[in-house]
């Protein structure tokens, strides 16, 4: 059949067969508001399927970044974990590794994320609550006690003070005789998305971007197995964006980091292979799968054709996925096991390189051991029992999935153009453009839920039945006291003169945009300067940041 014949057959089917029954009362759109047709057919495939879809491990990587994907190696099961002091989190790390997890992922507490030591007045009540407290090299060493850093890959979710935490990590490994070249893992570092969504900052935008450049450059020379950045959409989505906004803003952030690295004189092929990404896996199944496939295709094209990268390794977008925290309900928490499983499946069918599955109690608190075990088992069941990893990109060629992939790509480019018109992503962020888009999308979604147009089981639909009381993880306030003692002990026993000297050198170097700060940060780690002290020192040069909120 020709395309014309297919389309008229489709018309015929709609008129004669489909329209015999009335449609049910439902929005028939994705959670992002994208309308979905009753039927997709061959007419919805891309005009040139070979170019647009292609093969796994080959440009444009729509079907997957590696030739063998899960046939060769499953995704890494990497549960985000952290609470209390380094001792508690070390125990949780070991629990997860003992139960079959294949990589580590570190959640830091709010003071650590914001560059504050645990004994800072603003840290009161916050220590160890949202993640692990790390004030110093000593904490970093305790955190990974008994864990072979040259064999286990470690991810660290920290952004504004990322360069400092990386320094602590590298020196902690150094003290065990492991050089930076042997370390595998990721540090999140993606500061643009902080201003956009996650809202954890220490410095204004421009010096923050300089630190990112310093890390990318230093790691490209000294840490070939490390990802110095995880360009993230997860938080953008959690803040309320649509899937297309998540895709567009994340990729645009990534392209901006590439631009800036090239502007400082790096060859794109020297650093692009170590860039990595981090996406959300939300509950609208097919939209998510299309999003990941579009992401790979766009990135490959931009790196090869816009930036002129020559190595295929530079074109390949590799990403971590986390199931959507915002999709979890406090009502009937056991239902969240189902949500997480479906979201995890979308991540797998979308070809993720590593995956975190949320625990069912996470709308209430940080996960208990039992809850996180179920979350880990969810991944293991998908891998071992469902058969979805038997074949690569099993949904490739699906009329619906390919159409949505194309549509996502189209929407991303519409946003790229808007952002370019504003003067690029850094300028757009300074003007609050992505922040406003996200706030609007979040409000729109909330209105849909409250109007009953968007049904959420247990919240505005099927609300019958009591919840059995869910045991939740409680953070012992004693841990804050203990952590304060720890950091005071570090300050008490170290060479104060050496610390003062290194911080002085750091301040001087910070004035010079052309000097890479990593070597001095490593020195600061070695003399046991604390995170707060290092951030303070840098703030004397960089200043700090406060947001002009848009709502």
């Amino acid at each position, binding site marked *: 059949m020709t395309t014309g014949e297919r389309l008229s057959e489709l018309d015929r089917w709609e008129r004669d067969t489909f329209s015999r029954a009335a449609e049910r009362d439902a929005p028939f759109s994705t959670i992002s508001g994208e309308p979905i047709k009753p039927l997709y057919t061959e007419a919805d495939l891309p005009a040139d399927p070979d170019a647009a879809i292609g093969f796994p491990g080959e440009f444009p990587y729509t079907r997957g970044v590696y030739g063998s994907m899960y046939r060769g190696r499953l995704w890494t099961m990497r549960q985000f974990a952290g609470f209390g002091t380094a001792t508690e989190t070390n125990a949780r790390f070991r629990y997860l590794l003992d139960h079959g997890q294949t990589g580590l992922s570190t959640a830091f507490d709010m003071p650590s994320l914001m560059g504050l030591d645990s004994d800072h007045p*603003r840290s*009161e009540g916050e220590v160890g609550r949202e993640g692990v407290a790390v004030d110093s090299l000593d904490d970093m060493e305790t955190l990974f006690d008994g864990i072979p850093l040259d064999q286990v890959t470690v991810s660290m979710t920290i952004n504004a003070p990322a360069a400092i935490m990386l320094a602590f990590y590298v020196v902690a490994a150094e003290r065990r005789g492991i050089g930076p070249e042997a370390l595998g893992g990721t540090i999140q570092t993606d500061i643009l998305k902080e201003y956009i969504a*996650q*809202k954890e900052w220490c410095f204004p935008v421009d010096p923050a971007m300089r630190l990112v450049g310093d890390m990318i450059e230093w790691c490209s020379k000294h840490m070939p197995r490390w990802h110095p950045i995880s360009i993230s959409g997860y938080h953008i989505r959690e803040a309320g964006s649509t899937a297309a906004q998540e895709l567009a803003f994340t990729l645009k952030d990534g392209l901006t980091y590439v631009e800036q690295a090239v502007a400082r004189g790096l060859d794109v092929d020297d650093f692009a292979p170590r860039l990595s990404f981090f996406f959300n896996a939300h509950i609208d199944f097919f939209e998510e799968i299309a999003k990941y496939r579009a992401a790979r295709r766009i990135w490959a094209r931009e790196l090869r054709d816009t930036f002129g990268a020559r190595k295929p390794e530079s074109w390949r977008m590799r990403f971590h996925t986390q199931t959507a925290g915002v999709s979890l309900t406090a009502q009937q928490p056991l239902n969240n096991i189902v949500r997480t499983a479906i979201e995890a499946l979308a991540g797998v069918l979308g070809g993720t390189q590593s995956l975190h599955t949320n625990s069912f109690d996470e*709308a209430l*608190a940080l996960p208990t051991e039992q809850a996180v075990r179920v979350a880990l088992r969810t991944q293991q069941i998908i891998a071992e029992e469902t058969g979805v990893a038997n074949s690569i990109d099993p949904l490739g060629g699906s009329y619906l999935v390919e159409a949505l992939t194309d549509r996502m790509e189209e929407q991303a480019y519409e946003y790229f153009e808007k952002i370019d018109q504003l003067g690029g992503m850094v300028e757009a962020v300074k003007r609050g453009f992505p922040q406003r888009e996200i706030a609007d999308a979040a409000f729109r979604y909330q209105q849909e839920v409250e109007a009953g147009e968007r049904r959420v089981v247990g919240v505005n639909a099927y609300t019958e039945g009591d919840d059995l009381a869910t045991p939740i993880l409680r953070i012992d306030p004693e841990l804050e006291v203990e952590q304060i003692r720890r950091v005071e002990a570090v300050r008490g026993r170290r060479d104060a003169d050496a610390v003062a000297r290194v911080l002085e050198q750091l301040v001087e170097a910070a004035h010079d945009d052309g000097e890479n700060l990593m070597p001095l940060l490593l020195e600061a780690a070695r003399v046991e300067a604390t995170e707060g002290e290092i951030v303070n020192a840098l703030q004397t040069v960089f200043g700090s940041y406060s947001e002009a909120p848009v709502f």
Partner: protein
Amino acid sequence: MATSTEKKIRVVVAKPGLDGHDRGAKIIARALRDAGMEVIYTGLHQTPEQIVETVIQEDADAVGLSILSGAHMTLVPRVLQLLKEQGADDVIVTLGGTIPSDDVKELKDLGVAEVFTPGASTQQAVDFIRGAVRA
């Protein structure tokens, strides 16, 4: 809705502590504004002292605190205490965020008028604040 002769209800929406999760606070702020209230959104990273200062300066009738960091049992009692010390404990204090049910009870005993946990609607917040302030 407020009639033209009634003074607009003034609400401060605040993010205490280091918590950066502002999706809910912004939605509440917009909903209260759409419902005809005068809304002052403090933005992020406010100390209890800064929040109470804003409440008093803005002559607010109510304050909505939003905390998803787990630090609520330190920050909320502090806000309540400061409001009392500064003679502003007639201000209606509401709270939203990741607040375990055991803590809800304790906070209400300390003076929080209502806690809106995940799943609560903006309409509930609007109705409660309007009812509590006009009472």
